């Protein structure tokens, strides 16, 4: 009896992790986008008589030092972070995977050339690269997005290349080629089903690190400029008022924590090596 129970727990724990992550993420998405649908306070509207007011039944999240609604600002900042992270991950993933497969497939010069570009980008610390780009063209979310994507694609490229090479050299692919199937079929039937789970998991981790990077840049006042609500920026703005209004400072921190936690839970390690298709 006992060994059967043993065999079941990993699957159970896995689904619990995943659904918890999904639940938190869904909650954050609803919180971020609900104001767009049902309407809410303007995140930029100041009203100094509310300055640093603690949460109350009328305003659940209170107000910041300029009397702006924290709820509205958190929602707007979340939209920015989630949207930018998602966009960066997708932009990094698509060329990363395609280049990875290309390098694994053709090998030789192409492999070395793409590899060299990725390695030279890797030689720079990721945050520094984003910092440089945002310094060249300040106050432009597009630069932030470009910089993060430039850092992220390398991961997908390298993982895809490493995973695709043995698959492309396998007898199964040789058999498919002999039967007359072309590259699209081989990608669709042989490569993608084997690597998708790992890459999507990597995508969730990538989104988490993108969110952290955006916040970190905001915190050092390089990323998005005020008055645009952004989580890192909100932290640095509210830091001087820590004594009077700790709740205001803790809110963006909690939001980042929840967001990264949700993504990590979603991406989390699977217990058994085998994944069901």
């Amino acid at each position, binding site marked *: *009896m006992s*060994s*059967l129970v*043993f*065999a079941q727990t990993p699957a159970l724990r896995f689904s619990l992790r995943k659904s918890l992550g999904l639940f938190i993420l869904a909650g954050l998405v609803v919180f971020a986008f609900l104001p767009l649908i049902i309407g809410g306070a303007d995140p930029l509207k100041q009203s100094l008589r509310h300055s640093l007011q603690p949460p109350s039944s009328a305003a659940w999240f209170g107000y910041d030092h300029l009397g702006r609604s924290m709820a509205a600002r958190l929602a707007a900042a979340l939209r920015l972070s989630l949207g930018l992270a998602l966009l960066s991950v997708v932009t990094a993933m698509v060329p990363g995977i395609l280049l990875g497969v290309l390098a694994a497939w053709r090998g030789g010069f192409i492999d070395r050339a793409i590899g060299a570009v990725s390695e030279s980008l890797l030689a720079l610390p990721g945050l520094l690269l984003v910092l440089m780009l945002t310094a060249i063209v300040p106050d432009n979310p597009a630069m932030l997005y470009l910089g993060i994507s430039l850092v992220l694609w390398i991961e997908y490229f390298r993982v895809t290349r490493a995973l695709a090479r043995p698959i492309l050299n*396998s*007898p*199964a692919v*040789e*058999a*498919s080629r*002999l*039967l*007359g*199937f072309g590259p699209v*079929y081989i990608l669709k*039937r*042989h490569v993608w*089903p*084997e690597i998708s789970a790992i890459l999507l998991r990597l995508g969730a981790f990538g989104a988490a690190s993108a969110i952290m990077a955006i916040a970190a840049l905001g915190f050092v006042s390089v990323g998005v400029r005020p008055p645009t609500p952004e989580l890192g920026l909100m932290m640095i703005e509210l830091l001087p008022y820590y004594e009077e209004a700790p709740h205001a400072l803790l809110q963006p921190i909690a939001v980042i924590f929840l967001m990264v936690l949700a993504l990590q839970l979603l991406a989390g390690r699977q217990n058994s090596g085998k994944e069901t*298709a």
Partner: protein
Amino acid sequence: MSTLMEVRDAAVHTTEAQLVQPFSFSLEAGRPFTILGETGSGKSLLAQAVMGLLPEGLMASGQLGIEGETLDLGRPGSQKRLWGRKVSILPQEPWLALDPIMAAQAQVEEGYRFLRNEESDVARQSANRDLQQLGVAEARRKLPGQLSGGMAQRVAFAAARAGGARIVIADEPTKGLDVARRDEVIELLMREVRAGGCVLVITHDLALARQMGGDLAIMLEGRIVEQGEALEVLANPAHDYTRRLIAADPENWQTLDVEISSAGAPVLEATGIGKTRGGKQLFSGVDLTIRPGEIIGVTGPSGSGKSSLGDILLGLLKPDAGQVQRATGISIHRYQKLYQDPPAAFPARATLKQSLADLVALHQLEEVRIAPLMQRLRLAEHLLDRRPDQVSGGELQRFALLRVLLLDPVFLFADEPTSRLDLITQQETVELLVELARERGCALLLVSHDTALIEKTCDRTISIG
């Protein structure tokens, strides 16, 4: 003769089903014991139950008596202190079981140091002596990657018994080996037997069972159907399954004598092809003309380039010298290949139905051709909804045959198509393969390490290496 180990009523079950029926046996000093059975018959489970190595979810029952002690097989873990000291396992494919970054001698030395608690220089001498006795003294300072397969096997053997175990359990020790290497392994195991130890061999290889001698038990569907003196059982099999098993040994096949029709323009001509790999000349100056419906066997030891020859003929590999000429006007897709490991030749995550549908769509084939072919190949309809890893090796190899037959091949290269299949399945598969090739006028290049199999089935033979 003394009893080294006694197993009483060893059985394996899950919560729902009995996988291995209770079986008792004893291992005598100086006498090998062989359990023979096909894949999935439960023979490995039995060995794992005895060692306490069953995978999660499976439970064992029964008792194990060793040196006057009795252990309960239902409590895995109680055998742990026997590992290495009393009982050791010779792993399948031993070169994978060695530490790739540790010199051979050091790996053997560990057994003496940590299991027998010898001082480090005494242990080194002991390890040295062992390697010398096995004739691999020059392997001492080498890493496993620098050893040949045979040497690695000896080193692994030395390491397995360095802890002083007198009982060696060998699970499929000859899997995928050619005859020369198989004899080496048998010699290695027999050396242990002669020294007063005991070897428990788990295998599906009839020749191995015959050569080991000693006691033999035949397993079928989790049950021992026959047991006794090995030579006696093999000479006078009592059970129907044993008889079929012996009849399925290529040595006992009927020679397929068919009129060789050398008519028809050749489908493939190779002139003077040669290939070198890793600085070693595999073959050179091979001339070969292949006509429709011909069955050509290729034999040679492993690593001799049998597969490379076929791949060159198919255009998958470039020859270093010579050239391959295909008949003009025949589609390139009519030159096909069957693989050694059937599951590795299909998209792993697509159902068989999906894979076949893809092929039908690509070449605009008539789907109605599939059903009669499936019947011919004795493939059940319901298998189509499964993935490659959910059907047996024999079935999957027949699916692979079905897949290539849909393209009406004129030349088929079968690369050890049955070396991973059980004897009876092997016979079925080869018979079908030959029959269908003859019927359809498809030339067949059959590669096998088994000379008997090639002799009995092929019109002519090429020997390389």
